[in-house]
C-alpha cells in the first residue's frame, strides 16, 4: 500500500487547506428490493460479501465524530437490507452523531422501526416514486411497493419520528407534483425534498425516458413557490431543479472535499457519491486508514480542493469561490476531463451542446425504462 502524501496538495501540487466535514453519507449496502431507473448508486454495485461489517462502521462513526462530522445519513441501497441495521444506527448515535435514516420503506417492519427508535434514530426520510400505486410500482419496478410505503409512513409518524418525503421528479411524473406535495402534507411530513433526477449513472441510461421539458421545469418551480407560501410554518420544501436549465452550475457538495464525505458499502471513501465515475481517481478505504488521514491527505479528497487546479473559464471567473466550477463528475462525463468547467455552466464551450442534448432527450417519444439491477454471477 502506497503511503499518503505528507502534505495536502491538489492534483497540480498546489498546497490546499482542508476544512472540517459536517456530514457523512454512510451507504451501508447497495442491496435494494427496488430497482429505480435513476438510482444514484454506481452502475457497478457492491455485493453483500464485500460490505463493511457493523464493528467497522462503529469505528468509522467514532472517527467521523472526532473529525467534526455532526450528522450521518444512513443510506444504501436500502439500509433495511442489512439485518444489523439497528446495531449500526445505535453505534452512530453512541458516537454522538445525529442519525438520519434514508429508506425506501420496503423491508423494514413496524417492529424493526420501533427497534430503530429505541436505538436513537433521529429522523426518517422516505422516498416515494409516485403518488399512486400504478406510478410508484412501475418506477420502482416493485409491485405492491406503494401499499407498503404508505403503511411504513403511518408507522413513522405513529412512533413519532420526524418524517421527510423524498420525491424524485422527472418527465413522467412532473405534472403530479402538486399531488405529491399534498400527499406529504397528509402523511404529516415536516419536510419534502423535491429533486429533479440527476443524470449520472443509472439515470443517464434513462435520459430519453426521464428528461423533463423546459415547460415542466418552469411548472415545478411555480408549484414549489406557491406551496412554500401556502405551507409556511407547516412544511419545508427543498427543491433541486434540473441544472441544465440554470445559467450557472450548483456548488456541488458545497465544494469538493469541503463539507461532506461518502463512505461506500465496501468502506471506500469518496468526496461525492458519483466520484467513482472519475476513472483515474483512487479511493482510500477505512479498512486500511483512519478517516482523518483519508480526509486530510488522500489524493481523491485533495485533488479538487481550493481553486488552483481550475482551467479557463473558471480560473478567471468571479464566481469560482461560489460554485467551485460546478460538478467534477459532470465535467468528466460530458467534457471527458474532470477538471473542466462544468458543462452545464453557460460559460462552458460545451454548454450549447448540453442544452441541445437535454432538449432533444426531453422531446424523445419513449417511456421505456432500464431498471437498476445487480449483474448476474461474477
Amino acid at each position, binding site marked *: 500500500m502506497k503511503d499518503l502524501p505528507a502534505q495536502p496538495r491538489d492534483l497540480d501540487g498546489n498546497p490546499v487547506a482542508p476544512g472540517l466535514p459536517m456530514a457523512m453519507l454512510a451507504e451501508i449496502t447497495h442491496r435494494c428490493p427496488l430497482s429505480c431507473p435513476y438510482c444514484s448508486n454506481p452502475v457497478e454495485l457492491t455485493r453483500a460479501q464485500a460490505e463493511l461489517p457493523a464493528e467497522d462502521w462503529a469505528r468509522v462513526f467514532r472517527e467521523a465524530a472526532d473529525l467534526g462530522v455532526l450528522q450521518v445519513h444512513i443510506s444504501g441501497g436500502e439500509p433495511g437490507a442489512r439485518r444489523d441495521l439497528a446495531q449500526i444506527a445505535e453505534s452512530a448515535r453512541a458516537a454522538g452523531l445525529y442519525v438520519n435514516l434514508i429508506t425506501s420503506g420496503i423491508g423494514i417492519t413496524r417492529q424493526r422501526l420501533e427497534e430503530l427508535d429505541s436505538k436513537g434514530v433521529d429522523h426518517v426520510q422516505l422516498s416515494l416514486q409516485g403518488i399512486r400505486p400504478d406510478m410508484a410500482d412501475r418506477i420502482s419496478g416493485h409491485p405492491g411497493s406503494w401499499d407498503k410505503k404508505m403503511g411504513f409512513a403511518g408507522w413513522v409518524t405513529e412512533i413519532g419520528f420526524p418524517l421527510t418525503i423524498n420525491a424524485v421528479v422527472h418527465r413522467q411524473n412532473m405534472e403530479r407534483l402538486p399531488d405529491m406535495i399534498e400527499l406529504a402534507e397528509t402523511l404529516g411530513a415536516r*419536510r419534502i425534498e423535491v429533486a429533479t433526477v440527476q443524470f449520472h449513472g443509472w439515470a443517464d441510461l434513462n435520459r430519453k425516458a426521464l428528461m423533463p421539458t423546459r415547460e415542466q421545469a418552469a411548472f415545478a418551480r411555480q408549484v414549489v413557490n406557491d406551496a412554500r407560501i401556502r405551507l409556511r410554518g407547516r412544511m419545508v420544501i427543498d427543491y433541486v431543479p434540473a441544472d441544465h436549465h440554470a445559467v450557472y452550475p450548483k456548488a456541488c457538495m458545497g465544494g469538493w472535499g469541503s463539507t461532506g464525505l461518502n463512505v461506500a458499502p465496501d468502506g471506500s471513501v469518496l468526496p461525492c457519491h458519483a466520484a467513482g465515475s472519475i476513472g483515474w481517481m483512487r479511493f482510500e478505504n477505512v479498512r486500511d486508514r483512519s478517516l482523518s488521514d483519508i480526509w486530510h491527505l488522500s489524493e481523491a479528497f485533495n485533488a479538487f480542493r481550493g481553486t488552483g487546479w481550475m482551467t479557463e473559464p473558471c480560473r478567471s471567473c468571479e464566481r469560482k469561490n461560489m460554485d467551485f466550477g460546478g460538478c467534477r463528475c459532470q465535467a468528466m462525463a460530458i467534457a471527458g476531463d474532470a477538471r473542466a468547467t462544468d458543462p452545464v455552466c453557460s460559460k462552458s464551450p460545451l454548454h450549447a451542446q448540453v442544452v441541445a442534448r437535454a432538449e432533444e432527450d426531453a422531446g424523445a417519444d419513449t417511456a421505456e425504462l432500464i431498471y437498476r439491477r445487480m449483474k448476474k454471477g461474477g
Partner: protein
Amino acid sequence: MDPLIAPEDIPYLPRGVRLEDDRVRGIRVLQAPERAMQLDAIGDAILSELDGERSMAAIASDLATRYQAPEDQITGDIRDFLTGLIERRMVFVKSPPKET
C-alpha cells in the same frame, strides 16, 4: 416577516431537534433533520430557555431581567429568531393551556 408565534404561545424543540455542543469546533449547534445550524450566544441563550412550559412572553421577561435589556426589544428579537426557526420546522409552537 410575519410572525409565526404570539406572546402567549409556548415554543419548544420537537423530537428530532437537539441543542448540542459541537466539541470539535467549540461552538453550540442546533441539530435538525438535514441541518446543523451554528448558534451565536444570543441564539443559544434563547433556545436554552425553551422548556415546553413557559410562553414566549414569560421567556422574554426572564431574559430581559437577566440581561438588563428592555423587554420590548428582547420580545421582538425572540419573535423574529423563533419565526425563522418555525419556518424551517426546527421549533414548534403550542397554544397555552385553556383556563378551567
